[in-house]
């Protein structure tokens, strides 16, 4: 008898409620009270620090002797690292002050600390000047733009001199444009215009390495500024804030993994399985509280760092993948020891996968392989997130989470839940659990696309820094490897468990279905185009050979289908025999697939 949606939701709600109560019961009152006190204390310390202007490890570490009526006094007062004291030449000699400002002259103690204090003093003065300039009505006069034109031949690339000769700032325009040339910039300009000592080595602080790629200070008050305001190519401030979204997840999944594995220890989950609820209800009910906790934590972090609903919506797929991967891990692990290994792996991999691309949020569309990039952009005042970019970043994660839950629920049954098999075999069981009819092979191949997509994007992200001539062949091989795994592993699992008869005809049918399913699913990678990834050479190499509509010829549309069916049939023929034959057939398929990719790229790319 089919149960209604209402009955399913009711069962999920009941299980979720009891999961919360039971989890709460695990922590005794004394521990809970201590935890609450610790949380309050931590909050109080952070709050007090924030109210006092933030926590600074370098607060007042340099003493500057400067008169209160000196124009330098204000900048020193505003600097966190500088402390203004009475201008006493004896104090400089005695080492009680690091910098002395008297009669418009700046003198420093002849010590490393004195030189460091001078550098800090110079930065403080420079910042004060910029602030002063910002108050000017005539912005063009305050921040003149210097354009350096250099004519070069079209046949040659950009000469090194463009980036080197002018102090590293010459090629960019807009906000990040450097004055170019002398490097002294305005670094030592003072309110009085008299700063001979400080100007002595002022040129060293002028140019920054790679200006002009971002040029936006996410924490600043505006988009204009002097060269001193140029930011590194990554949005450091937003990135740090975005990282705050990931931190709580790493803790929540530990608790979630434990509660899921706990059902498998001593066969506790057996009694839930014999209740009038489905395995999906049980998993949903037990997952819901942890997903809820993650959403609440994400919302709180968003409130704290100034993120919008876009940030929360972008973090949600990450939370889902954290939970789904942990759930699948808890289904595969045989003990808490193995679970710890799984959850740590999940945490490290997902944190790295989401965080590292976000560093390049303002540099390359590849960064959008991570939903955290959307958060970083959302946190930057002058950046916006388009719907297609949002979809590109979040859809693969959401689909991956769905498929992982699907695989895990497939083995949430008595026969798999309590058996003690190594993790790889449990993974094969999970695949096999979803294959009972030939058409399931096609469906599973199609469902593997999100993982294939993510893996190929990861390969692009990892390899894109290498020279294109080396990277593209390597990438084509990796793409072939990933896709052949996706097309064949579940077929091998089904043969290995005896789901299908190991005949040649069955293998060919399954291989054809797998290739077809993969081909259809692969069309969904067309979403890559919406953010312009194929415009990159690597993106084109990764996605074009399989045919995502870039080729107009009908033959080339059919060619990927023929390829997928052929290689999948080859591996299926190997899989029907044993692991050794499967490995051999798999290797042959990868070679064939790589050759196809190379041919397409070299002739048409």
């Amino acid at each position: 008898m089919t149960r209604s949606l209402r009955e399913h939701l009711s069962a999920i709600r009941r299980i979720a409620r009891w999961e919360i109560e039971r989890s709460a019961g695990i922590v005794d009152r004394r521990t809970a009270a201590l935890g609450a006190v610790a949380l309050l204390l931590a909050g109080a310390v952070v709050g007090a620090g924030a109210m006092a202007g933030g926590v600074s490890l370098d607060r007042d570490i340099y003493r500057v002797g400067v008169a209160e009526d000196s124009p330098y006094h204000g900048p020193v007062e505003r600097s966190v690292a500088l402390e203004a004291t009475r201008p006493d030449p004896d104090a400089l000699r005695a080492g009680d002050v690091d910098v002395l400002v008297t009669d418009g002259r700046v003198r420093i103690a002849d010590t490393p600390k004195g030189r460091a204090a001078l550098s800090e003093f110079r930065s403080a003065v420079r910042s004060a000047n910029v602030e002063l300039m910002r108050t000017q009505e005539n912005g063009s006069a305050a921040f003149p733009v210097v354009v350096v034109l250099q004519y070069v031949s079209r046949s040659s690339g950009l000469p090194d001199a463009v980036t080197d000769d002018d102090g590293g700032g010459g090629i960019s325009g807009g906000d990040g444009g450097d004055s170019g040339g002398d490097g002294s910039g305005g670094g030592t300009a003072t309110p009085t215009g008299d700063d001979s000592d400080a100007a002595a080595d002022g040129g060293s602080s002028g140019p920054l390495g790679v200006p002009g790629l971002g040029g936006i200070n996410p924490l600043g008050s505006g988009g204009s500024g002097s060269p001193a305001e140029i930011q590194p190519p990554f949005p450091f401030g937003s990135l740090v804030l975005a990282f705050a979204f990931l931190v709580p997840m790493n803790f929540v999944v530990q608790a979630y993994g434990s509660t899921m594995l706990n059902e498998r220890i001593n066969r506790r989950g057996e009694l839930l399985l014999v209740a009038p609820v489905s395995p999906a209800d049980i998993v949903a009910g037990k997952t819901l509280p942890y997903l809820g906790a993650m959403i609440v934590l994400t919302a709180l972090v968003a409130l704290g760092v100034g993120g919008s609903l876009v940030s929360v919506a972008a973090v949600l797929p990450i939370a889902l993948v954290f939970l789904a991967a942990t759930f699948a891990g808890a289904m595969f692990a045989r003990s808490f020891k193995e679970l710890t290994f799984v959850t740590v792996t999940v945490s490290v991999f997902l944190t790295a996968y989401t965080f590292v691309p976000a560093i390049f949020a303002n540099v390359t569309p590849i960064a959008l392989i991570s939903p955290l990039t959307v958060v970083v952009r959302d946190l930057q005042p002058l950046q916006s997130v388009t719907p297609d970019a949002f979809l590109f970043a979040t859809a693969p994660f959401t689909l991956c989470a769905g498929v992982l839950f699907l695989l895990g629920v497939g083995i949430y049954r008595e026969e798999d839940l309590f058996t003690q098999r190594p993790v790889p075999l449990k993974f094969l069981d999970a695949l096999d659990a979803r294959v009972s009819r030939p058409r399931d092979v096609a469906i599973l191949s199609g469902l593997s696309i999100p993982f294939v997509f993510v893996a190929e994007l990861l390969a692009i992200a990892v390899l894109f820094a290498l020279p294109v001539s080396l990277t593209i062949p390597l990438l084509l091989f990796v793409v072939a490897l990933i896709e052949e795994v996706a097309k064949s592993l579940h077929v091998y699992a089904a043969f290995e468990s005896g789901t299908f008869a190991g005949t040649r005809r069955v293998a060919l049918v399954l291989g054809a279905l797998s290739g077809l399913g993969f081909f259809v699913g692969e069309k969904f990678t067309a979403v890559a185009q919406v953010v312009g990834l194929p415009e990159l050479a690597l993106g084109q190499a990764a996605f074009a050979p399989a045919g995502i509509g870039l080729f107009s010829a009908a033959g080339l549309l059919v060619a990927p289908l023929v390829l997928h069916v052929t290689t999948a049939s080859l591996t299926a023929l190997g899989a029907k025999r044993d692991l050794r034959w499967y490995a051999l057939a798999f290797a042959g398929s990868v070679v064939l697939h790589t050759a196809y990719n190379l041919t397409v790229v070299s002739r048409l790319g």
Partner: protein
Amino acid sequence: MATIRVEGLRKTYGDFPAVVGSDFSVDTGEIFGIVGPNGAGKTTTLKMLAGLVEPTAGVAEVAGRDAGDPEMRRDLGFLPEESPLYEDMTPRSYLGFFADLYDVPREAARERTESTLDRLELEHRERRLGDMSKGMKRKVAIARSLVNDPDLLIYDEPASGLDPLTTNYVLEFTRDLADQGKTVVFSAHNLYHVESICDRIVIMNRGEIIARGTVPEIREEYGTTAYHVFTTVPVAGAERDHRADTERYQAVVDDMAAVESIREAAAAADGEVVDIRTREQSLEDIFLDLADETPPEAAAGGGRAPSEAAAEEANAQPSDGGRTGAEPSNGSREQ
């Protein structure tokens, strides 16, 4: 009326047949026992009836529904061999959770829980389950199986690992449940439990049902009667009975014709028969004989050695991995 109907039920794990084509039915209000050694397929059969394990082939129907139907489980109380409780909960909260899971109205659940715990004489209802003895945990597990007031109870080794006092209590409680009209199917490898409460039984060995019927029927069909004939003089086949105060000899034969022969032989030697005692085989003896007679090939289908087969099922079904009952069997029964 049959509550359970099983036809051609079969379960294989890979190449290993755990249950080989079982057929039986269980009537409403009956206590039905499934008996067999470790690895016989008892637990697998019960789990197929409870919908926990999907049969490879055959039919398992409970109250007219397929055993895999979730709705069927609303009227089912299942007690596994172990008592896998959430040890951080109390009996009340644990039973409340399962009552909620079965959608039992809160007030009815509370009354039923308290009533069942009263009947089971379970105190310390607010103590953590992890702090309770094994017997108390078993009582909580039994109470959980009744929280939805099911018509069918499937108990896997209900007295497994319990002390004799608690065991007797559990068996009597099970008998009471049947008296209330509930159908009970339970497995055991302690045959004393089976003989004491079951209306009908099947004996399983290596996945196959090798005998079925009431206990007297099985005894009549498969058992033998031994005649212990005591004489005052030695006769052929007799041995000296050293337990007797006077000189006498004992011969054991299995039919009345042999008894007559001994009587004649004793008379010929100027002696006489002074006592004849009959001794019927116990269910355990019958079971052991039947198990010995079952060829491994017949049951395992693939010719695996019995120890290997048992080990494989124990591996596939850890809860069936076997422990012996706490009570001794009643052994031979003299009449």
